[in-house]
Every structure is written in structure tokens, then in C-alpha cells.
């Protein structure tokens, strides 16, 4: 399929279980998802449907007692498909933050209260982009030296350029640092008064990068904000700082786990606009997890609807809103309060995931349930162009 | 009839309570002026009767619960239940026969007191049995969610072997304390009949090594060590419970008032707390003992207990104050106020149950630590009077004998090692239990 070449991430048959005191919670059941390069995919569902853990599974960040019991998470990296579930920790650490980044719901708890904003954002930068920054510094120094040699510069220009020039010693130490930031020479050097200047210059470079990021996030007065602690920030600013952390290494895929749920509606608008603009600027792919259908309609190109641990419908946003196929999607859209109309709700409760129904998990609440829905699991069928449904009603129409 | 509540209690319960009270009074009378044998047999009869209904009734509930959940333990409990039931019924038959015979003979000899006693007891049995089932039936439904919580707690406790060891140790000491009269019979004339005074076997100040007559040897003054450590467990538990309990009550009072009402009351009470805390604990208690003994108390151990309470309450006050400050602003407290609850009610039903757990944990740990403090005071000579059955006191007697002579320095090891071991293991038991309790009650560790 030519479609495959456009995809960035694929999830196939993902099974996730939590082994708890009360039993085995089958949190995810054969989840199938594909994210196209450059799009915004929405993952929508209610509490407990598994949308957040799907995001975590993509980064293989499920804490015990959870365990991924099967399936693949395929990322298209370096021109090939890599199954992230089968990689070593070291490899995963190079992926997290770098290729795939995640931002969370409550910005205040995503930020460590005892470190400044700058320190936290620079953590990510230091981990992934250290070599790049060092190279940049070295190059700049070379260029500056060249320009200085040419002469005929004003005092101010001279002073400015002198700042970026590195001495031979500093250069050497920087190169060492670039190779191995934990080496013993480098560590000692960064403590000795004269030698540690190279580290200071590097830190300054990192700080400049952080401020640049904060400015990108449209935070007013980024120099001051960088030195603030999380509790001094308002909700909206804190969320922007978290987004800055997430984007600091230019990831290809950004997983946003309900980033605006806790924010006021006007602030939400600001953040959503910001995300849209950033996406255009950096060319990111976004996986937007939410329970708000309005946000989905605003932000997303395609959307996946999840219920009780499975993806029940997947397709383009316009198509799904106009023509929802799965009974749950239909019911969900009906639930949206509209003035003048009576409130519609969905009968019944979400089934317990410890003893989920054998067949379709929605069968006890589905108005179209048939006999086979109780015992047989439905298949993920392709109905129409790029429109998938997990439902027995459409077995005839599938391709 | 069961279920209706005029005046808040059922008629049956009322009759039951009246009969029980009458029986108690008559029983006491009988012990002194009547036929003690009758009392004993009749008491055993009601005892077994009671066990049969209450005990097996409760057991039945637990069994039923376990059976429904399908655990193997359920079957064990069922078998145990059946056996217990059978044994008690046999015993009941015997004692019941005894009661009938007594009734008959009392009737013949017109022993009014015995007769009335037995009548009261029979009434109680007659009505009580029926009522118990009613009470239990209701309790069954009400207790269900609580049972679930207990079961969860027990499971967590069972999982940790250290907590079981702690529990075993504590139970061992309780056993010692309860059965002291049997394990080390008192009543020696030498000490004036007070079982808490250790009997002496001679007057020599040199301790005698363990032998057949004195399994743990005798310490200076020829006090029997075995007797001392066994009865010492009573005094240890008594000190622990009274002092920890006293500190808890005073600390709670101060802490609750300070935290709930805030403002200047909070300031004053907290400064008071700070003042007491500023003194080194042991030294303050020593000073207090020296003052209290001649003025208030005769028995110095009581002075020790009071001084330890005075030194100990600030810890509880601070702890409960912190918890209450945290809970005071919770939504459900505000909701209770919005309904019109009085301050007292808010504190009692909403704030206390949610804040008491850390305090309870410290309480269990304190039970051991206080005994240690009391022993330290005794070692310094400020504890119980010489010859009193208290572990610290026994060690005090061994002060001169810790280092005997150069050739055999630990010749008299038994004088301090044995009571020392008893103390250490006691404290260890409570510590383990307290630790286990904390792990179990910590809300972050509870679920999953």
C-alpha cells in the first residue's frame, strides 16, 4: 500500500495487562492504530478506555504491575520500521524525547517543583543535543576568529565576537565533553576555576537555546520566566513550559495527553492555537489524546475512538462526524449537549476490565447488538476509504 | 418484635440488659456470702453459652464470607467451626447439668440468693440467645463492607512475615501477662501478699546462678528472677498502655483544639508544646519523678508513669495537629459544616477518623519505647521500688554485679541479660507490629 510509506507509527494488536490485587485488568485489547506522517491524530474516549496507556505503551513506559503482553509498536526511524517494544533501554532512551515526545495533562505535576524551568528544559536538551550544541559552539568560534582576523570592526562588534571565541584549551575540553560528558577529565575540569570556563560557555549556550524555545512558545519575558520555579507560573504558562520541554529536541511525533483539560477555556484556545502553529513550523506529527469532541473537531485530521481498551473506529474527522459507523461513536456524538434538546446519555456502565465480555465489549449497551456480538469478537474492518470499524454490523461491507 | 425500637432499644435487648445486670450483681454477692461453687459453674455455663452464640455466630459470618469468596481458608474455618461447636455443646451439656442440679438443691434448701442468681442467668440465656441472632443478622449486613476492609488489611499483614513475628512476640507477652499467676504462682508470704512484689529466697546480696529451684537464678537480695520477668510483663504492659494512652489523650486534646480553632489558641498551645519539647525527655521526667513522689504519689512507679505522660504528649499533639490542618480544608469537612454540623460533630465524625491513623501507628510504636524509657529510669534508680516486678527494676538490682571480677567478668550475666532480653524483644515486637501497621494503613500502599 502506498499508504504505508506515509505512515510514521503503527500499532498492531497491542495487548496490555495490569496484574493487580483484584485481578488481571485487560487494559488494552488488540489495539490497532496508524499515524500518518505530518498529521494530527486524535484519540478520543472516556475515562478508563485506555487512551492514556496507549500513549505510554508507545514509549514503553508502562509501570509495573502493568505488562505489555503482545503486539508491536512500529516506528519508522532511519528509513526502517523499528519495533519499540523489543528494543533495549538504551535505545529507547535515545528515542524518548528525541523522536517521540510526550506532554501531560497537569503541567504543575509534570514539572519538578524544586528546579527552575530552565534547568528542566535543559535536561532534555543536554541529553539529546549535546553534540550538536558543542559542534555549533566550535563552529561559531572558528567563524568568529576568522572575522576578527579580518579586522575593521567596531568596538561593540569586536566585543560581541570575542564572547563566542574559545581558547585552545577551552576547545579541547569542549571536544572531550562532546565525546563523553561524564569523563573524569571533563568532570574535574569543570570544577577548576579557570578551566571551567568552557562549561560556563556551554551552559550559556544551553540557556540561550532554552530562552529561544520559550519565546517560540509565546511566553512573554522568557529570560525571566526561565529562571522561575513551577509554582510561580500560572497554568497556561506552565503548560507552555511543558510543551517547550517536549519540543526541545525537535521530535517527529508529539504525544499530547489531554494537555488542555485542566485549563480555562480561553487559555485552552491559546494553547491549541500555539500547538497548531508549532506543528506548521516544525512539521511535527501529533497524537492528541482527549475526551473532548470539540477539541477533536478543532485540531485533528483523523481520529481514533476508543472504548474499554480497544479502538472501535478510526478515520478522517470530517467523515466520522458526518457518518459515524460504530454504535458507540454514534452514541458519543449524541451525548454532546445541545440547547433545546433533551440530554442523551448512554445506558449502562463501562464493563469491568477484569472480566470483560467475551465478545464485543460494547454489546451490553449497544442498541444494535446481535447474537454474535456477545460471544464473538468483532474484527477491525475497512469500510470505505480510510475508515475502519470494529463491529459485526459491517462485515458485509468490508473490503 | 425484633427490629422495633421504642426508646431506641428493642424490648428484647432491654430484658437482656436487665437480666445481665441482675446476674452480675447477684454473682458478686454470691462470691462473698453465698455458694461460690454455684457461681463458678453457672458462670462457666453462661460463658460457654455465650461463646456458642456470639462466637460461633461471628465465626459463621466469617466462614460464610470466606466460603462465598471461594478461598481454601474458608474450608479450614468451617471445619474449625464445626469442631468448636461440637466441643462447646458437650461442655455446655455438662455445665448445664450442673446448673440444673444446683437449681434443684438451691430450691430444696431455699437458698434464695443462689436461686435468684440462677433465674437471672437463665432469663438472660433464654432471651439473649434469640437476640444475639437478631443483632448478628443486622451486624452481618452492616459489617460486610467493614469485613472487606479488614480482610484486605489482614491480607497485607499476612504477606509480611516480619509483622507476623511482631504480632507473635506481642501475643507471647500478653500470654505471659495473662497467665502469670499460673506460670509463676504468687502468694508468697514474704512480700505481704502483693503479687507484684517478687518473692525473696534469703537475704544474701550475691546473686545465685540459675538452678532447679530458680530457673533464671536470683538477683541481689535473692529475688527470684523467673518470677520477676514473668510478672514484669504485666507491669510492662500496664506502663506501656497507661502512659501511651495518657499521652495520646492529652496530646489529642491539645492538638485538636489547636488545629481546629487556630488563631491565638493555636499559638498558645503550640508554644506550650514547644516548651515541654525543649527539655531533654529523660531529664525532665527524672526531675518530675523526684518532685512528684513525695508530694502526690506513694508508689513511685505511678510517678514514673505520670512524668512520662507529661514528657510524651507533645509528640502526639504535633502529629495530630499536622494531620488535622491537612484535613480541615477538605471538601467533605466543608460539606458537613454546610449541613449544619456542630464543631464537635465535625471533629468526631469527619476529621478524627481520617487523621487518626498516623497517631495510632505512633501509639503502637510508643508502647514499646515507653517501656524502654521506664526501664532506663529504673536503671538510674528512679523507677519502681526495689523488689517490684518490673524489668528495669530487676536490672537496677544487678547494677553492682554487671562486672563481677577480672577472672570471670560475666559470672552474673543472668542478672541483667535475662531481663534485658525480655525488654529488647518486647520493644522489638511492638516495633515490628507498628511498622506492619504503618505499611498496611498507608493509603498510598493500600490499593494494589
Amino acid at each position, binding site marked *: 500500500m502506498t499508504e504505508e510509506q506515509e505512515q510514521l507509527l503503527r500499532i498492531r494488536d497491542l495487548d496490555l495487562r495490569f496484574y493487580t490485587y483484584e485481578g488481571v485488568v485487560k487494559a488494552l485489547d488488540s489495539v490497532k492504530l496508524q499515524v500518518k506522517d505530518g498529521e494530527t491524530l486524535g484519540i478520543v474516549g*472516556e*475515562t478508563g478506555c485506555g487512551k492514556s496507556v496507549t500513549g505510554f505503551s508507545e514509549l514503553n513506559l508502562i509501570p509495573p504491575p502493568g505488562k505489555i503482553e503482545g503486539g508491536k509498536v512500529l516506528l519508522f526511524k532511519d528509513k526502517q520500521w523499528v519495533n519499540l517494544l523489543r528494543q533495549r533501554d538504551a535505545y529507547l532512551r535515545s528515542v524518548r524525547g528525541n523522536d517521540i515526545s510526550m506532554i501531560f495533562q497537569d503541567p504543575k505535576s509534570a514539572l519538578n517543583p524544586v528546579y527552575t524551568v530552565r534547568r528542566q528544559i535543559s535536561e532534555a536538551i543536554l541529553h539529546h543535543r549535546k553534540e550538536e550544541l558543542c559542534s555549533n559552539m566550535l563552529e561559531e568560534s572558528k567563524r568568529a576568529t576568522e572575522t576578527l582576523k579580518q579586522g575593521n570592526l567596531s568596538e561593540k562588534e569586536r566585543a560581541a565576537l570575542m564572547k563566542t571565541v574559545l581558547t585552545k584549551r577551552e576547545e579541547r575540553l569542549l571536544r572531550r565533553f562532546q565525546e563523553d560528558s561524564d569523563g573524569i577529565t571533563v568532570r574535574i575540569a569543570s570544577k577548576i576555576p579557570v578551566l571551567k570556563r568552557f562549561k560556563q560557555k556551554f551552559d550559556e549556550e544551553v540557556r540561550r537555546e532554552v530562552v529561544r524555545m520559550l519565546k517560540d512558545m509565546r511566553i*512573554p519575558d522568557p529570560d525571566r520566566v526561565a529562571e522561575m520555579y513551577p509554582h510561580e507560573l*500560572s*497554568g497556561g504558562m506552565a503548560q507552555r513550559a511543558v510543551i517547550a520541554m517536549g519540543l526541545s529536541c525537535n521530535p517527529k511525533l508529539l504525544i499530547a495527553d489531554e494537555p488542555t483539560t485542566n485549563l*480555562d*477555556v*480561553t*487559555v*485552552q*484556545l*491559546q494553547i*491549541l*492555537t500555539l500547538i497548531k502553529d508549532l506543528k506548521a513550523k516544525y512539521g511535527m506529527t501529533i497524537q492528541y489524546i482527549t*475526551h*473532548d*469532541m*470539540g*477539541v477533536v*473537531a*478543532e485540531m485533528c485530521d483523523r481520529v481514533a475512538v476508543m472504548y474499554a481498551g480497544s479502538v472501535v473506529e478510526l478515520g478522517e*474527522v*470530517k467523515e466520522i*462526524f*458526518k457518518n459515524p459507523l460504530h454504535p458507540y461513536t454514534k*452514541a*458519543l456524538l449524541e*451525548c*454532546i*449537549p445541545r*440547547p*433545546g*434538546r*433533551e*440530554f*442523551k*446519555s*448512554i445506558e449502562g*456502565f463501562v464493563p469491568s476490565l477484569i472480566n470483560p465480555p467475551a465478545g464485543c465489549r460494547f454489546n451490553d449497551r449497544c442498541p444494535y447488538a446481535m447474537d454474535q456480538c456477545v460471544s464473538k469478537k468483532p474484527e477491525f474492518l475497512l469500510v470505505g476509504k480510510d475508515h475502519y470499524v470494529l463491529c459485526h454490523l459491517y462485515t458485509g461491507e468490508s473490503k | 418484635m425484633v427490629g422495633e*425500637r421504642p426508646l*431506641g432499644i428493642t424490648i428484647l435487648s432491654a430484658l437482656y440488659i436487665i437480666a445481665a445486670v441482675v446476674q452480675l450483681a447477684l454473682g458478686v454477692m454470691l462470691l462473698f456470702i453465698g455458694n461460690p461453687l454455684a457461681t463458678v459453674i453457672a458462670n462457666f455455663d453462661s460463658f460457654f453459652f455465650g461463646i456458642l452464640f456470639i462466637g460461633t455466630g461471628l465465626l459463621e459470618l466469617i466462614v460464610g464470607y470466606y466460603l462465598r469468596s471461594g478461598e481454601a481458608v474458608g474450608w479450614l474455618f468451617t471445619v474449625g467451626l464445626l469442631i468448636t461447636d461440637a466441643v462447646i455443646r458437650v461442655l455446655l451439656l455438662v455445665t448445664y447439668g450442673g446448673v440444673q442440679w444446683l437449681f434443684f438443691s438451691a430450691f430444696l434448701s431455699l437458698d434464695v440468693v443462689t436461686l435468684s442468681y440462677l433465674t437471672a442467668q437463665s432469663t438472660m440465656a433464654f432471651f439473649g440467645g434469640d437476640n444475639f441472632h437478631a443483632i448478628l443478622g443486622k451486624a452481618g*449486613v*452492616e459489617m*460486610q*463492607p467493614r469485613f472487606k*476492609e479488614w480482610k484486605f488489611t489482614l491480607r497485607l499483614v499476612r504477606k509480611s512475615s516480619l509483622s507476623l513475628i511482631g504480632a507473635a512476640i506481642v501475643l507471647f507477652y500478653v500470654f505471659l501477662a495473662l497467665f502469670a499467676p499460673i506460670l509463676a504462682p504468687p502468694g508468697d508470704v514474704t512480700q505481704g501478699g502483693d503479687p507484684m512484689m517478687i518473692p525473696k529466697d534469703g537475704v544474701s546480696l550475691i546473686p545465685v546462678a540459675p538452678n532447679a529451684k530458680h530457673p533464671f537464678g536470683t538477683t541481689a537480695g535473692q529475688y527470684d528472677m523467673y518470677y520477676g520477668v514473668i510478672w514484669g510483663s504485666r507491669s510492662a504492659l500496664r506502663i506501656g498502655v497507661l502512659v501511651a494512652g495518657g499521652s495520646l489523650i492529652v496530646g489529642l486534646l491539645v492538638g485538636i483544639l489547636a488545629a481546629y480553632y487556630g488563631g491565638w489558641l493555636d499559638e498558645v498551645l503550640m508554644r506550650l508544646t514547644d516548651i515541654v519539647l525543649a527539655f531533654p525527655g529523660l531529664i525532665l521526667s527524672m526531675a518530675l519523678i523526684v518532685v512528684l513522689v513525695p508530694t502526690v504519689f506513694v508508689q513511685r512507679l505511678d510517678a514514673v508513669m505520670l512524668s512520662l505522660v507529661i514528657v510524651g504528649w507533645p509528640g502526639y499533639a504535633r502529629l495530630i495537629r499536622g494531620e488535622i490542618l491537612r484535613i480541615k480544608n*477538605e*471538601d*467533605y469537612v466543608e*460539606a*458537613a459544616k*454546610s*449541613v*449544619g*454540623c456542630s464543631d464537635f*460533630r465535625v471533629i468526631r*465524625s*469527619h476529621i478524627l*477518623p*481520617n487523621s487518626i491513623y498516623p497517631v495510632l501507628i505512633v501509639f503502637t510504636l510508643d508502647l514499646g519505647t515507653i517501656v524502654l524509657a521506664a526501664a532506663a529510669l529504673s536503671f538510674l534508680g528512679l523507677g519502681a521500688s526495689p523488689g517490684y516486678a518490673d524489668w528495669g527494676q530487676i536490672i537496677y538490682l544487678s547494677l553492682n554485679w554487671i562486672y563481677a571480677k577480672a577472672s570471670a567478668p560475666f559470672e552474673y550475666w543472668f542478672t541483667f541479660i535475662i531481663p534485658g532480653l525480655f525488654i529488647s524483644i518486647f520493644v522489638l515486637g511492638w516495633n515490628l507490629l507498628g511498622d506492619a501497621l504503618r505499611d498496611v494503613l498507608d493509603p498510598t500502599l493500600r490499593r494494589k
Partner: protein
Amino acid sequence: MLELDDLKKYYALTGGLLRRKVGAVKAVDGISLVVKKGETFGLVGESGCGKTTLAKTTLRLINPTSGNIFFDVPDEVKERIRTLQKEKKAGLELRKLKGQWDLASYKGRKLREMRRMMQMVYQDPTRSLNPRMLVKDILLEPLAVQNIAKGAAGLKRVSEMLERVGLGDRHLYRYPHEFSGGQRQRIAIARALITTPKLVFLDEPTSSVDVSVRAQLLNLFQGLRKDFDLTYLYISHDLSVVECIADRVGVMYLGKLVELARTTELYKRPLHPYSVALFSAIPVPDPTVKRERVILSGEVPSPVNPPSGCRFHPRCGSAMQVCQTQEPKLIDVGNEHFVACHLFNK
């Protein structure tokens, strides 16, 4: 039924060595509104605007700094009190009248009796229900405290109430954590209604539950309103829900009421620049609709140092010179539509 007259709640800020008052957090700054009997009054605004503080102050869970709260007070008495206050005659008559009619001055037993008439449902039922109390006890408590019913009679009322909110007797002997979010909120609603109040404050009651459960709860609210003849004050920041449930809506910003109108009128024709921005920020669950958005700059300023004049002027696109110095008052622009903005000062 409920009338607030210039209600204010200031929190004093102390500073310096002698803990002197250096400033005040003006959480509620002069709110006057009327809630009619039987209606649902919606109060919207973002976090920090003071809507929750307003509700709690009206319920006397927080004590107001100044202002009157009239609950079911005859008009003549209200007028009399207002006249006396205007003339600044702080005499015996005023005090007596206030003690009898002004909720803000109630104390002791009168206050407790009043609590029966006004109740509140909180936002997060996990936090508003005592985790160590059985449902039965949670529901029996208001009855016992207000001396309505005890023992078996009380239990009967509790059972009826539970049934009315969609739960059953089997839920009596359980702890709150054994229920789902929606069920917990129902228990909270049952607790609020068990004393048969006349006015119920709903503080974002559906924001912590799922969309499908939300509709169930909203239907429940409507049903209960009819059955118990209630008046609601619905506080929310979810504008789409308020649109469906409220008869009249008030918009708050930084402690002040900036706009007040009937729901259909307000949503069709928001006038105050803040309301316009607020309504345009609601995400529409329809991808084909492209709405014109007003994106506000900056954040809501802290209520410690509110901007001078009109509180919204630093962020307002249509700010004029007068907005920086003079505070606008609520003006009637016809059709029961009130706005506090200099743009409409004709």
C-alpha cells in the same frame, strides 16, 4: 428568591513585622444579582473569577466582608433595609431587621436553620464524601443534625432518596470508593437534597465525570428540579452545558459581574468583550464549522492587584481612555440584558 446586594469578600493580606494589612485579595467585589424562584441561574467564568467564592459566601461557609444576602425576604423589608443603609443610619432598627432577614448577619441557631434551605453539590465527589463513612451514615447525618428524622424513619428517607437519584438499598452499606465517579456524584446530590432545600448550588458538578455520564446527571438535575420544586445556581466553566441547562446566565471576571442576560439572548448576542472572547473560545464539536476566534492576550491577572478602572481593560481589544480610570457599572441595555462596559454607556 435569592437576592445579593453588593456582596463583597476580601481576604486581607498581612505583611511586615507587625502583620499589618498591606492589601486585599478582592475575591468577590460587589456582586448584586437576583435569582428567581424555580429558575436555573448559570454563573460562568474562568478560574480565579470568584464564582466558587461567591457561592460559598452566600452559603455562609465563608463570611462576607460586606453586603446583604436576602433569601425569601418580602420586598418591603428589603427596601426598608436598603433605605436605612443608604441613609447610613446604623441604628437599632437596622440591626434588628438585618438580624432577622439578612443572611449575612445570621448567627448560631438561625444560621443552622437556614442551612437546611440552601445546599451545595461540590465539584469532585471523591473529595466531598468522607472516605471513612458508609453511604448510609453520610446520608443520615444531615437528617440527624437538622433534627428531621432519626433511626428507622431516617433510614426510610435515605432509601427513598437513594432511589430517587438512581441508586438502591444495596448501596447503603458501602464506602464511597467502591463506586464510580458518576455514582459518587449521585450520592453527593442525595446528601444535598435530603434536607429538602429550596435553593441548591451546583459547583461544576459534571466536570469530573465522563461525557456519557454527564448527560445522565443533567437529566437527573432537571428531573429533581421538577419533583422537588428547586431553584438552582449552576456554576461552571463549561459553557456548552450551561447553555442547555440555564435560564439566565451571569458572566464573572475577577470578582465582578460583567454581563447578565437570559441564556438564549446571551449566547446569541454577547456584548461584553470578555464574554465575546469567552464564547468564541468554546470548541465546537463540528469540523465543518469555522468559528471566528478571539484570542485573548496574556493571562487572567491575579485578584491581589486588579487593574484599575475596568478590570478587563489591559486585555480588551476595544479599550478606551475611560476604561483605565473608571469602573463600569451594570447597565440595562434592554430585554433583561445587563452589561458592565463603557462601550454601552449611552
